[in-house]
């Protein structure tokens, strides 16, 4: 497989770091792949532009940072403005229609997905927006299966929240699959 370098970005509190950890852990522990996650720490616990890097490969990963992602997720306009210039030419750039207005000049396969509003409409809880995003990412990249994500979630969150997360993940997979066509 080709080494996949991803950057998830957004605003503190949106859960992009959690999503990145879940994806990387699922790849490393349930898909037999090598995965590495890191993040940029600012002084803010909430707000500010958050960035987290995930690398997934089938061989050893030494350098842990992503310079030019081939998958970039931007969940705020600020994150999009800041990070869209670093995407690898021709890479996959995922944004949310509620938060981001895209530019035409970016050399990437831009997928503007209606994730936030779908989550609010179908589930009504913004807390699982990040899991819906993760669903879209795994559908578009086909690196990690939804089952592996669910196995990871089972170890991380209380049982009573699992159904809601599964629902959000499925919504994301649906949105992602539709955008693939």
């Amino acid at each position, binding site marked *: 497989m080709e080494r996949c370098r991803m950057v998830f970005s957004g605003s503190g509190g949106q859960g992009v770091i959690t999503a990145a*950890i879940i994806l*990387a*852990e699922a790849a*490393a*522990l*349930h898909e037999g792949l*090598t*995965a*590495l*996650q*890191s*993040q*940029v*720490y*600012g*002084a803010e616990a909430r707000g500010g532009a958050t960035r987290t890097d995930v690398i997934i490969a089938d061989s*050893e*990963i*030494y*350098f*842990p*940072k992503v*310079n030019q992602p081939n998958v970039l997720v931007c969940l705020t306009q600020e994150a999009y403005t800041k990070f869209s210039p670093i995407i690898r030419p021709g890479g996959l750039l995922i944004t949310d229609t509620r938060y981001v207005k895209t530019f035409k000049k970016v050399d990437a396969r831009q997928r503007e997905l209606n994730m936030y509003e779908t989550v609010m409409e179908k589930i009504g809880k913004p807390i699982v927006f990040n899991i819906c995003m993760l669903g879209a990412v795994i559908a578009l990249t086909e690196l990690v299966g939804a089952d592996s994500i669910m*196995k990871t979630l089972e170890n991380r969150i209380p049982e009573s929240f699992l159904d809601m997360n599964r629902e959000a993940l499925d919504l994301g997979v649906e949105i992602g699959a539709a955008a693939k066509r």
Partner: protein
Amino acid sequence: MNNQVKFVQGNEACAEGALYAGLDFFAGYPITPSTEIAERMSIQLPKIGGKYLQMEDEIASLAAIIGASLTGHKVMTATSGPGFSLMQEALGFAVMAEIPCVIVNVQRGGPSTGNPTHVSQGDVNQARWGTHGDHAIVALTASNHQDVFRVTVEAFNIAETYRTPVVLLFDEVVGHMREKLTIPEPGEIPLVERLKTSVRGGVDYHPYLPREDGRLPMSDFGGVHRYNVTGLFHDMWGFPTDNPKIVQGLLRHLVDKIENNSHKIAMYKEYYMEDARRILISYGSAARSALHVVENRRSRGERLGLLELQTLWPFPYNVVKERCSGARSVTVVEMNKGQIADQVKAAVDDPGKVFLANRVDGVLITPTDIRNFLRVIQGRGI
């Protein structure tokens, strides 16, 4: 799924290594980027009947674990640059009183408050000479989580074997990034337990009279032997003295017990070193970038090798001298102004062939940075 396989931060790998080594007492004070170690300890230690203490500052944290070590426990504290500065006085006490303990410094940018959430390797010399007076010290590091776990266990083994504080010099990148960690089965990594005195109660016990091999069997506080422990120069009973002969003998013992065993304490990894014409020497997170470059160059047939140091102090001069003897150039990749490069220059026959490839801006040195340095060294320009 084996639950001994985890996807964790380097700081958690360190905490897991400490628990595997038998740690049951931790005291600390929160500081970025080491805090996850304390958090992990506060969760795990009471579950095994161990103790987690949050002290009023880093001075008190190191003091508290020294106190706990004396009752026979394996102990650790964790901090970063500013806290490590505060610990220097008690670190010297642990050296002088020969108290086994492990001090983790997850390095961030300095001096002062510096660059708290960004990587640096600027505390290498502080670990060596931060506390005042002549002394020897042990400092270890690692570049990936499996090795973080491993060197943490070895830190406890060395602390117990030589009755010394051991510094673990990790860095922000390794401390914070997440990757897979497989926890070894019990017994897979041998553990060194404290050497206890065999002298019975009622018989005069000399707490500071080394055995022939230099080791000092201990008696726990609270046990049958009552003795004095002090940071002053002391005699074989632990009682203060300024007798020049005893002062010199003790200082010699404190230095020799480490320096004479530097070959046993030396931990390092070699990548493609057998036929390497050009050598990179690196450690910690910088070694990840160095290894990336080496793997990449080797696939193109270039004879580049990497010597990854895990023991920084006592510096493995002999290993470096021997491995670098036939090399055309030796490039030290680190994130400071050349703290290990200086040691490498002192180790090799021709210091003129030693170069420094560094970065000190809070950003992990990249493979591209290293490739550019190599081009310049080879006279090819960027």
